[in-house]
Structures are given as structure tokens and as C-alpha cells.
């Protein structure tokens, strides 16, 4: 059966992120001039405006900053998953990501350490998701 959930829209700025995820690496755009890490990526650094950007693997463990469960499906592809978990994650470098909390969520608390889990939802797309560490 074909994958029925929304897939990332083609976006040249995001291509390194998706390439990294497919290879099992969580990458974040980082400024070569001032070392600011930011997500989602931009054409210039939001701190110093340098266009000189690279993608770096995140260092320390990400932390859980919030979590909710969707009881309503805004896409048919999520209908059978309801209620499905969505979490807010802060990378060690600072940027915030929205993703899914997988596995047992009973120990969820603000600031809990997470580990990234890579979910290859199609041959082309791997979604980074997170589990309690």
C-alpha cells in the first residue's frame, strides 16, 4: 500500500537535511562565520547574515520541550493513527524541531533527554523521530 501521509515538499535549502536523515544522521544548518546553528535553514545566517553555511551533525542529546496528541486528523493519512503523538524538541545547539514521540511516552517530562530514531517512510524519505532516552 502506498504511503498516504504528507511528504516533504522539494526545497533545495532542506535537501541536505533529508539526505542526512536517509543516511541516519541528524543535521542542522550551522554558520561557518559565527557558528550559529539554526533550523529550518535559511539563505543567510540569522545571527550574522553570512551566506557561508554548512550542515553539521548535532552534538549533545536533544531535549523534550513539549508534547501533545492529535485526536483530529487534518490529513486522511493520519486518520488511523489517532490519537498520534507530536513533540517539540530542542537540539543541544538550540534550534527547535517538531516531530513525533515514538515508543513509551509514560516518562515524558519537560527537559527529558531524547534520542533520535530514523523512520524510513518511503525509499526517498526518512523522518527523524524521537524517543525518550
Amino acid at each position, binding site marked *: 500500500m502506498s504511503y498516504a501521509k504528507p511528504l516533504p515538499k522539494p526545497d533545495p535549502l532542506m535537501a541536505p537535511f533529508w539526505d542526512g536523515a536517509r543516511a541516519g544522521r541528524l543535521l542542522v544548518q550551522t554558520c561557518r562565520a559565527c557558528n550559529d546553528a539554526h533550523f529550518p535553514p535559511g539563505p543567510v545566517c540569522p545571527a550574522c547574515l553570512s551566506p557561508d553555511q554548512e550542515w553539521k551533525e548535532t552534538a549533545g542529546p536533544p531535549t523534550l520541550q513539549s508534547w501533545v496528541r492529535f*485526536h483530529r486528523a487534518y490529513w486522511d493519512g493520519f486518520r488511523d493513527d489517532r490519537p498520534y503523538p507530536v513533540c517539540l524538541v530542542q537540539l543541544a545547539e538550540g534550534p527547535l524541531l517538531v516531530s513525533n514521540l515514538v515508543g513509551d511516552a509514560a516518562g515524558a517530562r519537560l527537559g527529558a533527554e531524547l534520542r533520535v530514531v530514523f523512520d524510513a517512510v518511503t525509499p526517498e524519505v526518512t523522518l527523524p523521530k524521537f524517543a525518550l532516552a
Partner: protein
Amino acid sequence: MTHPLRNQAAVIGVGTTAYGNFPHTDEYGLAAEAFRNALADGGIAKHQIDGLVTCRIPSYVRMGEILGLDPAWSLTLPPHGRMSGIGIIEAALAIAAGQASTVALLYANIGRSRRVNYGGEESPNIWDPWGFTSPGAAHALMFRRHMELYGTTTRQLAEVSVAFRRHAGLTPGAVMRTPITIEDHETARFITEPLRLLDYCLINDGAVCLIVTKADRARDHAQPPVMVSGFGARDRFRSASIPNFDLEFWHDAVAEAGRQAREMAGVDRTDIDALMAYDNFSPTVLFSLEGLGFCPRGEAGRFVEGGTIGLGGALPMNTDGGHLSNSYMQGWALNVEAVRQLRGGNGARQVKDARVIQYVQATPCTRSIIYTRG
């Protein structure tokens, strides 16, 4: 020293339409009706209008054509919820700068009849692959943080929905008028847990018009003027990719906008007789109270317990029922309610001796306006 912008503009006319499901008309038809109602309300002749602000109306030029207006000054605002405060402040500034003398501000929404649902394919964002969408979900993320950080409970949040529903029951034309209880809130279905149906605003059709003029002309009309006494602003765009979300509940932005508005108006927090807070989702009411300093940070849940924000309480809020129960006019109707309360004569929903009313929108474009009796 008196702030040079204090009391330089006044609201002299307000108009609203019925609120509901109106597939037979559109933004132009609804806005034209609100415009006619505002002119009639204020005893204002159309030729006196020389400024036009439009919001959530497809074409500002078509709107002007329909109403037969060639304004000296105009401003077009996108269909975002946070534009009402911006529009009213910009109109006051245009008047103070002499760009216009009497500005009509028009807002219309046809979201109910056109089945707008504010999520999914309708508003794509980069988090779609993970199923994260809709402004309500962003507020659910914020409220979970508030629960974790401060121990706020959903029963406390229910106080907001219950109070505003009671107010709607006293408001002619409000969409949702049947009283609710805390238990009704606690057993309503989840939309994005921890938020439930009764934490979400309505989606309905309708339109609003305010007419703002130079203070020195404000007494020549049918209604007592309501002064735009002070206003403040602070934007936060640095986490815009998570729409309608702020890790700190816009706390410092709300505090700053509130301080600016109070200083311009020359009032203290204790002078505020009622507060109209943008309530697209019930948690923003708590964030607004904390940001404005009506209670210490983290204590808004306890503050709203026991009827504090209901009519008759220490700080009546959203006395028309707000977005949660009156009408989803994205802040515009709350500003109209501030005007109506300051004019007086609102029967059972009148705030006794209301002299100073504050409007606030805790959003990525935070704005606050303080209105006083003219």
C-alpha cells in the same frame, strides 16, 4: 510629560453584522453591511471617510469601488488574526501624521460557509510530514509547557471558557450562548490534547467596521467618542516556522507592549476596568494576564479560578464572549466590545462605571491598545 500620541484619535462609529453561516454572500457583502452599520451608529456621512483599512478582504481596490471611496490614505492587511491591533494603531498614526482625518477599518471573514479549517493542505508548513498543523496545536504545545512549568491544570483553563460562554449568553447575536460548566469542558472531546473542543475558537462568518477620527472632531457625532489613549507593540518572528508558537508564551513582548500602552495613556494597571484579550485558544488568555502583569508569571491558572475574569469579578475579560463563544472576528469584535463598554448601556453585560479598557493580542505581532471614555 504627556505622551504626544495620547488621545489623538477616537473611535466614533462601530458596526457589526450578524454572525453565522452565510453562503449567499461574501467578504464584500458582509463588509459593506458592517460599514453601513458603523456610519449609521456614529451619524457619519460617507464623504467624511478619507482613510481605508481592509483586512481579510480579497481586493482592497474592489472594496473601495464597491463603497465608492477614493481615500487619501489606505492600508491593506493580510488575513491573519493578529492584524486588528495593527490596523487600529496604524490608523491612529496616520491620523496623527495628517495622512487622513477619518479612517474606516473593515474586516470580514467567511470561514464558516467556505469550510475553512486552519490546518492540513490549507496551510502547508514544513512539519506536515510529522502531522503537526493548525494554530490550536501550537497552543496545545504551549499549554503543555505551562502545565509542566507551573502546575496549571485544565480545570483552571476551563474557567476561561466557562466565563466567556456566560458573557456570550448576555451578548445579542453571539454564536454560542448555552451556558457550560467546568465539567462540560473537562468532558468535551480532545482536539489536540491537552486542549479540547471548548478551548478552541469558533469559526463563523461576519464582518466588523470601526471608524476612527481625529480627537478634535470626535465630538461632532452621534455617539460619545471613545479615545485611543495609548498603544504598544512588540513582534517576535525568530521562531516563525512553528506558526503561532512561542517558547516563552510571548511573555516579554506582552509586558513591553502593555507598558508602552499604559505609559502613553497615562494609566496604571489598577486603572484597567476590563481586559479584551485575543482568545483564539483559551491558553492565550492566561499568557495575556501574565504578560501584562495582572498576576505573577506562572500564576494565571490560579488567578482565573473563582470567577476573577467574569462579569462582576475583579478583572472582567472578553465581556462579549470573545472568539471562544461570541464570534471569531480575529480581534476586531473585541475592540468593538471595548468601545461599546465605554459608551455604556449594555444591560446585564455592562461593566459598571467602565472608564479604561485594554485590548491585547498575545501573538507573534503583539499589540495592546488602551481605550478610555472621551
